[in-house]
């Protein structure tokens, strides 16, 4: 089953709508609460990244009986140094974003911790695509 959402850049009030809707579907399917929680954390972080750093993006979630794969694709600046971005505490978020409580530099490491599989494709000046897989 496929669920799709558009994510607008800079709209922090709506950041989390997609992860919340995905959460709702998983709960209704009876997926174990601990797994739902990992999906929520990973997708929410990635969704906030799109809002905070990109020019906008699109989320596609495919739910299968064995697990969920979520692809979050944005157009934007891309990540110049993925290895650095994967370190805890590293952040390029602007002051404005940090003041809203986002951008503590925990995003990518947190996603990595909660996902069974994480792929990052990024091109500087074009955008970033995250593919997250979590087993049920």
């Amino acid at each position, binding site marked *: 089953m496929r669920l799709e959402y558009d994510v607008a850049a800079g709209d922090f009030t709506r950041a989390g709508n997609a*992860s*919340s809707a995905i959460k709702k579907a998983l709960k*209704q*399917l*009876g997926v174990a*609460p601990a797994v739902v*929680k990992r999906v929520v954390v990973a997708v929410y972080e990635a969704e906030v990244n799109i809002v905070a750093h990109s020019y906008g993006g699109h989320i596609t979630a495919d739910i299968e009986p064995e697990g969920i794969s979520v692809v979050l694709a944005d157009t934007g600046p891309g990540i110049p140094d993925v290895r650095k971005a994967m370190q805890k505490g590293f952040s390029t978020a602007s002051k404005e974003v940090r003041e809203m*409580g986002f951008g503590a530099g925990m995003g990518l490491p947190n996603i990595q911790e909660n996902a069974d599989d994480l792929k990052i494709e990024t091109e500087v000046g074009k955008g970033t695509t995250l593919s997250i897989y979590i087993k049920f």
Partner: protein
Amino acid sequence: MEHNTFHKALEIQPELCIGCSHCIKVCPTEALRVSGGKALLYADWCIDCGRCFRVCPSRAIRVVDDDFDNIFSYRHRVLLVPAVFYAQFEKRIPRRVINDILGDMGFSEVCTVEQSADTLVEEINGYVRGAGEKPVISSFCPAVIRLIQVRFPSLIDRIMLLLPPIEVTAQYYVRRWQMGGGDPAELGVFYLTPCIAKIAAVKSPVGGYESPISGVINMDYVYNKVLHAYKNKKYPEEGMGTESVNDAVSSKGLLWPLTGGEASQIEGRALSIDGMSNVIEFLEKLEDEEIEEPIDYLELRGCDESCPGGILVQGNRFLVADNLREVAASAPDTHIKAEEYKRFCSAYIKMDAVEPRSMVKYDKDINVAIKKMEMAGMLRKILPDIDCGACGAPSCEALAADIVREDASLNNCIFMQARFEKEGSLQVSEAIDLMEQVWGKDRFVNKEKSESE
């Protein structure tokens, strides 16, 4: 509908139900439908919050309480009275008169529920300090506990594993009786409840616990009895009451059932949230990991204004709360029984983990559930999305789920009926049949005409 595996504290009386659908709109778990002109309950989804009871215009929802005369099966009859009970009465009715009337009704001992709050405050603060995951969610309101079991299973390990005040107080009176050499079979401990969720909580408690409470008594019933006796001057003269009274309570205890009563006693940051919709909104955010600020403790109460807003409490909830605050203002910081409570109850204050009660919305088998959810998603696209409730379900989303579970049909939707009629695939008489199945035959009779004839 579904079989019932949990004690239900409320039930619909079909002979009184007029199928008005008010209840289906307020249920926080969408557990109600209208079918055949009557409200029906998916019992396993019900959390006993009582919102349906509150909005029912025909008093068709019955509180499943214990028969009052059961109290006479015990020789020593203790009534545990919550502070909100007294706060409902006009101030000129003396407390001793109320207690004497309760004595006349058959109680040997009248005790205040919130006596255990002083002991609990210390235990709660210790628990919160040692808690791994925060915020810790209060175990006070049974409707909220049941809401979390059914709708927020991923938050279940945040529930504080300490008993609520009523159970600690009940344990105290049981221990005291046993230590005094009393025969356990002769002691009856009764709880005068301001809400129906507490009936369910006593009858089928969570956390591997068995309540020592022998019976739960409806506060509404006793309020009327007491007021009637008072108005007719049917109460003993001063000093002639037969009951003994244990009403020592601190200001903490008196404020405990009010919104903020718990939160104000917590060391650290605590929020108090009352009203089912507010509680749900916050729990959704917490579950979505969107609450980034550190919070130590959540006092969550299902009713507006907490226990003064309980559905079995008479009188306006704001006035009841204000009366209680006024009494608390002149009450001591702690009470004479507090130390004894500590000794008697510290071993009994903990409970085991609370189990989730999963809400099977589509199917237990995830393969089937995904297919059904996909079908429901397609149905959502053709349903009008205005949640009118004319199909007997509370929302288009609920109808879509009902259709894929084969509990309803697409024809139940009046918009779909109009479309099918326009397309010529449905006759007017068929459409009327369909609506009669949901709302009953009486709804489609022209009453004005039949009366004038």
